C-alpha cells in the first residue's frame, strides 16, 4: 500500500499508514508500481457503457443507472450488529450464474463480478456474497492475503490448482486445466484417442451410476465412441436410459422411494434461509416400503458387495470410516467383518449420536439434538475481521497457473491438447478482458443465440425431472416447455409464427422443434426452457418428448473455458422452416 501520509510504501498491517493512495503511480525500490484501484481503473477504461451497448444491446444509460444504484444500495460505511458482533453492512451482490459464466470466457464474467463486489466491500458479510463453506476458511497467509482453507472440499480446485502430473494420470486432463471443476468433454476424447492426450493407458472398465452424459453433456457421438471403446461397462441404474443402452451389464437400483440414505447436515451457504447455514445435525432417508417392490438393491449395498468381492476391504473400509469420521470411535469398520450399508448406517449413528441407532430414526424421523451455530459464526468476516485478511482485488493465481502450465508444457515438449497455446493463455490473466473466442466465430448466417434456462420446477435435467410422470403431466400448463421460444418481432421478420416447425442449427448440431412466439425473450435469441428429449427407446414415452438443447453445444478443444472447464451454453444458431 502507498501511504500518502508517509509518502512511502507500507505493509498492510502498518498501524500508522494514514491516508492511502487509490490512484497514481509510485516508485518502490526502483520499480514503478500502481495501487490496485488504479490498475483496475486502467483495465476497465476501454470498456465503456457505450462499448458494451454495441455488443449486448443494453443501453449505456441502463448500465450507468445500475452502477449508481449498486453503489448507493451498498451503503458503504454502514454496519450491522449480529449476536453482539459488529459487521460491515453491504446489502448488495453481483452474483453470476450459468447464463453469465457458461461461456468460453465465462471466468472473466465471474472475475468482473468479484471485483465489483470487492470495490464496495461486499464480501463474506451480511447481505452479500459469502464463502461457500461456513467456518474459518479465509485465514491469511504470512502476507495477510486470504489463503483458502478449502483443500479436499468440493470445488477446491477453483482456488487451489491441480498439481502437474506427467504423464497425465486422469482422463479429463486436470493438469492442463488446473482450476477446472470438471472437463468430461475432454475425457471422452481422451478415452477414444489416448495418445493425442499423452495418456499411457486406456480404461478397461467403467462403472456408471447417477449420471447420464448422453443427456447432460455435449457431443453425443464422442461419448458414444468412448463407451464403445471401453471393454467392459456396467451401470447401476434405475431406468433404461441412454447409458444403459451402451452397457454390458445392468445392476438394477432401488427407486428413490426405496433407498436408504444418510447425510450429515453440512453447513451450506447457498441456502434459502440461514437455518441450513447454522444447523449441525443429521438427516436420513428411509424406504417408504417394508420391502422393495422388485429385485433391486441400494447402490451402497451393491458397492459394499463389490468391495468385498474385489478384495478391497482393507483400504475401502478405512476410507469409509475416515469419510464418516468414525475412526477412533470404536465403531470404525473392521476388515474382518462384512457389512451391509444398513450396518454402516447403524455404526455411523452410534459413533456420532450415542444410543440413537437406526431404530431410533425409524421411530422419530430426525435426530433432535442438532446444534444451531450462532448466526454471526456463519460469516467469513467474523473469523478474520477488520484487516486480518486481505482479499485480493484481482486473481493473480490465474496468471501463476497459466505461467506454470506453459512452462511445464515446454519442459515436456507438449502443449494443451487441441489448443493454440497463445489462445489458451489469454484465459489466464488476473483481470478480465474482452476478446472474441473461437466459439463466437460462426458464419454470419448463424444470426441468433440459443439460450437455455431453468424453470422454477425444472432445473434443466437435474433430479430426473424429465422422467418424472407427475411433472411431465403438468407440461401443458407451462407455455415455456417443449417449444422453441422466439421473440414475436423476430418471428415476424423471419416469416415464422406459432406452431411452425423449424430446424435450429448451430455449427455443431441441429434440433427440430416447434416455434412459440413470446414477448419475454431478447430479439437476438431463440430460447429453450429446461432440458428434455431422451433418445433411449426403452424409457417411458413422455421422457422422449421435448427438446435436448445440449445437441447444439460443443465441447471441442479450444472452444471451452480452460479455467472453469465450462462449455459455451449460448451457441450461435440459425432457424430454418421445415
Amino acid at each position, binding site marked *: 500500500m502507498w501511504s500518502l501520509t508517509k509518502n512511502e510504501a507500507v505493509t498492510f498491517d502498518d498501524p500508522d499508514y494514514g491516508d492511502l493512495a487509490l490512484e497514481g503511480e509510485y516508485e518502490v525500490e526502483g520499480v514503478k508500481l500502481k495501487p490496485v484501484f488504479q490498475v483496475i481503473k486502467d483495465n476497465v477504461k476501454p470498456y465503456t457503457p457505450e462499448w458494451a451497448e454495441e455488443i449486448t444491446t443494453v443501453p449505456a444509460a441502463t448500465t450507468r443507472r445500475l452502477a449508481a444504484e449498486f453503489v448507493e444500495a451498498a451503503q458503504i460505511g454502514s454496519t450491522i450488529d449480529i449476536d453482539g458482533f459488529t459487521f460491515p453492512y453491504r446489502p448488495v451482490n453481483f452474483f453470476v450464474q450459468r447464463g453469465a459464466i457458461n461461456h468460453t470466457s465465462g471466468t472473466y464474467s465471474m472475475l468482473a463480478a468479484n471485483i465489483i463486489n470487492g470495490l464496495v466491500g461486499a464480501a463474506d458479510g451480511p447481505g452479500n456474497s459469502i464463502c461457500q463453506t461456513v467456518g474459518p476458511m479465509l485465514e491469511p497467509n504470512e502476507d495477510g492475503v486470504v489463503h483458502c482453507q478449502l483443500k479436499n472440499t468440493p470445488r477446491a480446485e477453483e482456488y487451489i490448482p491441480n498439481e502437474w502430473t506427467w504423464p497425465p494420470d486422469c482422463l479429463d486432463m486436470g493438469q492442463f486445466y488446473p482450476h477446472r471443476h470438471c472437463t468430461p468433454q475432454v475425457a471422452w476424447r481422451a478415452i477414444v484417442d489416448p495418445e493425442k492426450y499423452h495418456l499411457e493407458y486406456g480404461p478397461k472398465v467403467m462403472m456408471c451410476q447417477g449420471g447420464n452424459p448422453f443427456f447432460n453433456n455435449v457431443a453425443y457421438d464422442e461419448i458414444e465412441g468412448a463407451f464403445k471403446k471401453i471393454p467392459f461397462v456396467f451401470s447401476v441404474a434405475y431406468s433404461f436410459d441412454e447409458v444403459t443402452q451402451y452397457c454390458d451389464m445392468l445392476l438394477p437400483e432401488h427407486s428413490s422411494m426405496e433407498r436408504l440414505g444418510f447425510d450429515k447436515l453440512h453447513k451450506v451457504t447457498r441456502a434459502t434461509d440461514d437455518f441450513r447455514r447454522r444447523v449441525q445435525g443429521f438427516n436420513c432417508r428411509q424406504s417408504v416400503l417394508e420391502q422393495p417392490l422388485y429385485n433391486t438393491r441400494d447402490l451402497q449395498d451393491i458397492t459394499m458387495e463389490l468391495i468385498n468381492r474385489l478384495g478391497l476391504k482393507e483400504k475401502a473400509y478405512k476410507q469409509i470410516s475416515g469419510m464418516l469420521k468414525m475412526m477412533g470411535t470404536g465403531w470404525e469398520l473392521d476388515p474382518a467383518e462384512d457389512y451391509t450399508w444398513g450396518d454402516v448406517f447403524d455404526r455411523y449413528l452410534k459413533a456420532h449420536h450415542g444410543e440413537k441407532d437406526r431404530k431410533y430414526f425409524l421411530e422419530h424421523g430426525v435426530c433432535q439434538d442438532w446444534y444451531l451455530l450462532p448466526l454471526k459464526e456463519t460469516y467469513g468476516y467474523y473469523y478474520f475481521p477488520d484487516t486480518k485478511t486481505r482479499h485480493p482485488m484481482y486473481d493473480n493465481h490465474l496468471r501463476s497457473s497459466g505461467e506454470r502450465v506453459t512452462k511445464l508444457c515446454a519442459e515436456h515438449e507438449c502443449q494443451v491438447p487441441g489448443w493454440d497455446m497463445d489462445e489458451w493463455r489469454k484465459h489466464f490473466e488476473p483481470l478480465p478482458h474482452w476478446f472474441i473466442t473461437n466459439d463466437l466465430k460462426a458464419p454470419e448466417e448463424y444470426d441468433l443465440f440459443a439460450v437455455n434456462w431453468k424453470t422454477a420446477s425444472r432445473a434443466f435435467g437435474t433430479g430426473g425431472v424429465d422422467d418424472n410422470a407427475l411433472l411431465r403431466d*403438468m407440461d401443458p*400448463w407451462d407455455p415455456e416447455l417443449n417449444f422453441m421460444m422466439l421473440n414475436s418481432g423476430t418471428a415476424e421478420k423471419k416469416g415464422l409464427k406459432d406452431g411452425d416447425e423449424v430446424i435450429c442449427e448451430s455449427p455443431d448440431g441441429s434440433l427440430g422443434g416447434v416455434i412459440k412466439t*413470446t414477448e419475454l425473450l431478447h430479439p437476438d435469441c431463440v430460447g429453450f426452457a429446461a432440458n428434455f428429449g431422451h433418445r433411449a427407446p426403452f424409457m417411458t414415452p413422455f421422457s422422449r418428448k421435448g427438446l435436448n438443447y445440449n445437441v447444439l453445444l460443443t465441447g471441442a478443444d479450444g472452444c471451452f473455458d480452460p479455467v472453469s472447464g465450462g462449455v459455451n451454453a449460448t451457441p450461435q444458431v440459425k432457424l430454418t422452416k421445415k
Partner: protein
Amino acid sequence: MRYGMVIDLNRCVGCDTCAMACKQHNGTPKGVYWSKVLRREKGKYPNSHMHYQPMLCMHCSEAECERVCPTGASYKREDGIVAIDPDKCIGCEFCVMACPYGARTKLVGIQPYYPERGLTPYEKVICGQHQTGVVGKCDFCASRLEEDKKPACVQACVAIARHFGDLDDPESEVFKLVETGKAKPLLPDVGTDPSVFYIEYHRR
C-alpha cells in the same frame, strides 16, 4: 367460521409446488388438478413479464356449484368449505359448467401415468380412493385441517405466497390481509363471494 386463503401474487414464482403437493396429498389421477398455476405473458418486450395465477376452488359463499347441483351432493360446510358428497353425486357436471373458476373435474376414469404398463402400485393405492363418474375438487385439505395442519399447498409453498385461516377471526392473518383492501377475489362481478383472495401483482 369461514376458512379462507390469501395468495400473494408478488411472491408466487410459478414453481408448481402447490400443484404437486396437492396431487401427492389428494392422490388425484393423471390429468386431474385441484390446484394448479395458470401462466400468461403480459406486456411487450422489453417491458414484459410472466404472470402466475394459482387456481383452486374458491369456496364461494354464494357457490354456483351448490345452487345448480340437483342432488345436494355439493354443499357448504359450517366452516365455509364447499364440499362434495361423492355418494350423492350423479356426475351430471352441472356444477362443472356453473363454476366460473374451472375448479371442478369429473373423474371419467383413472388414466395411468405409464399407459404401456397400467397403474403402478403407487397409483393403485393413492388414486384408488377416488370414485369414477363423480366430480371432485379442492376441499382445502379437510382431512389435514382435522389434524390441525394447513392445506398441503399452503404448507408446501416455497415462496410463502399462501396464507390460510379463518376469515371471520379478526386476529387471523387472512382477516388482516383482506382488511387492508389489497387482497381481492377473482371475478368479483359474478357475485359468488369467494373465500380465496389474491394480492395483486405490482411490478417493481
